[in-house]
């Protein structure tokens, strides 16, 4: 099977800082890959490069086996790569429907904004994620962290998504909403969508991911099927950048 995404030898430097240093990572349809690491390990940079929001200093990206140029978020979205940014990337003064459709506004035959249809669609997709979602007409600056997060998620899944990048999607959410995001991830995987999940929550990661990639100071220090590692193994990779000394694969599967 062709991978949905292949990122090969990706580098990104900021002056002397090697935020991403020669990382290769891939993603298959219907697969959830957890991206783990300390703050500052380079997870967001790697994900932003795939989103078209950051230019790599070096490296290659293939999407569905074809070389891709991801020079702008727009190009990435055209290829079906949708991103939920850690910062959410919402325009505070606009309301939920305007944010949901920002950059991809629905328009009438005359080219006018079709605010009514955008409101209807927004109501549908938002209530699917959170049945209690109200305040569709309020500027999103007035909404709670959870509601804002829901808008950011809705914006990523509403359109024809093939690859979903979730950079700490549950950071601002309560338990119920976190569970909802978990359900959503399982459902999207069923539909054959590939997902990169950046998270600090090992419980969620072990619950949702098929594979984990661990980063440490810009390097990829591990890539494992979830069955072959324990939480302690992963913690060791995150903290020390290496597996415990006495480590053996739990299931005899190959170490990648």
């Amino acid at each position, binding site marked *: 099977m062709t991978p949905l995404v292949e990122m090969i030898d990706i580098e990104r430097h900021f002056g002397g800082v090697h935020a991403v240093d020669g990382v290769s990572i891939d993603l298959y349809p219907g697969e959830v890959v957890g991206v783990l690491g300390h703050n500052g390990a380079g997870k967001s940079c790697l994900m932003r490069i795939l989103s078209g929001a950051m230019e790599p200093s070096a490296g290659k990206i293939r999407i569905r086996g074809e070389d891709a140029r991801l020079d702008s978020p727009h190009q990435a979205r055209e290829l079906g790569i949708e991103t939920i940014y850690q910062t959410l990337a919402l325009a505070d003064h606009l309301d939920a429907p305007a944010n949901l459709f920002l950059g991809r506004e629905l328009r009438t035959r005359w080219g006018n904004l079709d605010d009514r249809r955008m409101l209807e669609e927004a109501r549908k997709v938002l209530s699917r994620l959170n049945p209690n979602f109200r305040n569709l007409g309020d500027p999103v600056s007035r909404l709670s962290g959870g509601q804002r997060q829901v808008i950011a998620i809705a*914006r990523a899944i509403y359109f024809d998504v093939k690859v979903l990048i979730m950079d700490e999607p549950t950071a601002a959410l309560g338990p119920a909403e976190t569970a909802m995001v978990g359900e959503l991830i399982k459902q999207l995987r069923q539909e054959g969508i590939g997902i990169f999940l950046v998270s600090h929550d090992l419980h969620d990661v072990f619950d949702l991911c098929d594979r984990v990639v661990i980063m440490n100071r810009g390097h990829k220090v591990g890539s494992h099927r979830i069955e072959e590692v324990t939480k302690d193994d992963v913690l060791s990779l995150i903290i020390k950048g290496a597996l415990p000394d006495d480590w053996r694969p739990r299931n005899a599967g190959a170490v990648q």
Partner: protein
Amino acid sequence: MAAADSTFLSIKGPGSINGEAFHKLSALATLALLVGAFAFGNSAFLSVNNGLTLLLQTSVIGLLGIGMTMVIITGGIDLSVGSVLALSGTVAGLLVKAGVPVPVAMTVAVGVGAVCGLINGLVITRMRITPFVATLGMMMIARGTALQLTGAAPISQLGEAFGWLGNGALFRMVEKMPNGLSKVVFPGIPYPAILLLIVAVGAAYLLRRRRLGRHIYAVGSNEEAARLSGVNVERTKIAAYVMSGALAGLAGNVLMSRLVTAQPNEGVMYELDAIASAVIGGASLMGGVGGVSGTMIGAFIIGVLRNGLNMAGVSAFIQQIIIGFVVILAVFIDQLRSRR
């Protein structure tokens, strides 16, 4: 800060009044209060003739203010509009003097304004110069060019046709009296006022109903979010500056036409009146907030203040001081409200 034109962007439940609507209402109340006070002080203030003078005076500030509003919503500022007005007006005058028909000359003048705006936009987005500095540069470049082109001398005797836009009126009715003099039955609606109305409606439509308008708010609200959402941030900003420049050109035509003289020294500090009307009308210099209707109210507040104080014999210097206080007060009240 008040919500973005959320009245435009949203369906509001009954009884919920948002910050922007509140600001607009209070600005409107201020305007009514001013008119009342001046009318009480001098009955001539409410005369038809004075009303027309006021409309004429306000139309120039209003045109500049609308362009300024678009720029301010993107989070920028355009300090060049007063000078661009002068450059465009003198270009129109020079062309007419050279035998070019008036409509062509005035169209070119608007184009000159648009080009100045385009340069502003390119300098800001491509060279990454802050709007304040970029348009400050353009302010001097445009003024200098206007003075250089004319040798700093006004161009007069431009002919009747040149004065048509600034001095004509729709539905003007004049009656010939038996003694040979003519009597004005109805002074008509001045063309500048009609022009302002058309531009205001067009700009409001663009901001509320068109994608470019939505993107203008988005860019001013959170530039990074707009970029990540696929909005072409650079093009959106450039469009705002081009419109501001073109409207400055149009305002130049109106002003020079009214004087029937192309004055390279006209329009000094007009950018400040334009900024003041936008801010009094509720626009935020932080970006993301503002609207045409608010700016129109702001322009009329400034126009009424100037006109009323003039009639009351208050010196131009004192007027400046008063308007300065009004601007600070308007922003202060807005901040008080949004801090709650």
